[in-house]
């Protein structure tokens, strides 16, 4: 019995930015985990071949045996390569190869892997490398939706604008003349105090320049660095503003309405300061 035709294919979401260091991998890990927490079977693919990071953020670096390139080259099967997350049900990681470069990825190879994953997963998160070259284009080519990670500063906004142009012109959807890739803006490392003093662009400045719907605003937070170093996606830290903001973003991605929060300058009271809140 062939049920494949009736089955809904996985939604492929690329997390991209153009600029490096804005929080793509942190966001991929957080959002992938958030979607899995909601009960959807999710896989996060690290497309940053040669600069593997996702495994560190997810805290599974010691369990990497095979990688994405091995699967493309048919040196290993997907089930051998996928790493099951120990904390979160329904979550899997497909690590990048550290010893190869972006040329190891081919359109046909990536397509084959994505098609196979599609049969089994509900969501496929593609963690894009920085830049606009082959690696980044490979990560976004098959995407249905894109989360454009942007910092509130001009160079990051400019690069996001550039990647939005590439999403609309060099993706499979664009080439096939299908409905364009769904675009979501995720503003990270947002510091309300520095926005107020004019050192950073505000949410409305960035929205005005990029003109795409806002998925969420993640406040600058020490919890993010701490979570990265511990290998725990920050979304699991329900005490932190960044974790809560990521959860809001995941809710919005699933079509729920959530008001924006953490956009105001926090005035710390004496007791809060004492308790280190």
């Amino acid at each position, binding site marked *: 019995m062939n049920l494949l035709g009736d089955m809904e294919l996985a939604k492929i979401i690329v997390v991209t930015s153009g600029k490096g260091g804005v929080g793509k991998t942190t966001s991929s890990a957080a959002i992938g985990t958030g979607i899995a927490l909601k009960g959807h079977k999710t896989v996060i693919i690290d497309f940053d071949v040669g600069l593997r990071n996702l495994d560190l953020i997810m805290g599974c670096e010691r369990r990497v045996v095979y990688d994405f390139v091995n699967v493309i080259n048919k040196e290993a099967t997907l089930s051998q390569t996928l790493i099951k997350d120990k904390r979160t049900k329904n979550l899997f990681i497909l690590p990048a190869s550290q010893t190869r470069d972006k040329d190891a990825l081919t359109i046909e190879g990536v397509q084959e892997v994505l098609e196979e994953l599609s049969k089994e997963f509900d969501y496929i998160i593609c963690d894009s490398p920085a830049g606009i070259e082959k690696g980044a284009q490979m990560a976004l080519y098959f995407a249905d939706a894109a989360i454009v990670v942007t910092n509130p500063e001009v160079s990051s906004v*400019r690069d996001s*604008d*550039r990647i939005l*142009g*590439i999403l609309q012109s060099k993706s499979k959807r664009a080439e096939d003349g299908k409905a364009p890739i769904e675009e979501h803006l995720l503003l990270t490392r947002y510091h309300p105090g520095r926005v107020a003093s004019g050192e950073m662009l505000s949410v409305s400045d960035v929205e005005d*320049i990029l003109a795409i719907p806002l998925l969420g605003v993640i406040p600058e937070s020490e919890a993010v660095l701490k979570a990265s170093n511990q290998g725990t996606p920050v979304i699991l830290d329900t005490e932190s503003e960044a974790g809560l903001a990521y959860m809001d973003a995941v809710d919005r991605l699933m079509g729920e309405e959530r008001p924006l929060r953490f956009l105001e300058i926090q005035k710390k009271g004496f007791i809060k300061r004492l308790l280190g809140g």
Partner: protein
Amino acid sequence: MTDSGFRLKGSVVTTVLLEIQTFSLDGIVFHLKEKIDQVPHFFNQAPIIVDISKMKRGVTVGEFEALIQSVSALGLGVIGWRCDPDNLPVWSASVTIPLLPASKTRPINIAPTVKEESSPDVVVKTVVEERLVPQSTKVITKPIRSGQQVYAEGDLIVLAQVSAGAEVLADGNIHVYGALRGRALAGVKGDVEARIFCKSMEAELVSIAGNFMLSDALQNIVWKDSAQVLLVDDSLEIVPL
């Protein structure tokens, strides 16, 4: 990146060639002035090359310099001169304006259809071609992002923003019903009548038929407001809408 602070590039400029056939200074000045008065706009500060290669007799340095002076006095910019390379005058090295290599074009002999009553001393040749420009209009509904370039053979209408780092070009007019933050070049094939219209002027550069203005200058005229850009007497005017 270079440390030299400049770049050497090749460039082709359309110029007017003043081909002297018989040297009579007064006659040349008189007829040339007549031509200029017909289309003063065209000749104003136009680059011109003085060509004496078709002259039967030699020209003295005095005569030549007087000619250059008179031509300059008429408002033309002499950028060089030409003469028959086999018949180079002895004074050729002493002239300050550059001697240009002889034209490689073959002489085209076209039988004159209508004989003019008096053969003019001066022939003004212009290297401007007339051609049919298709007037199709291109409509873009999505934002034009940084790094993208859109060109329209006729008019260009953008129903969204043009981001910083994007470039829109048109042979005709450009309309942007959103913020214009990138570069907009209208009349790129030389149409001086072309204009740029935008809902919010925040451009990096606007240009009409090669006359351009950068954002620094624009900010002092109209900024973040609706505006049109047009060419008036070879200078750009930015007018609020």
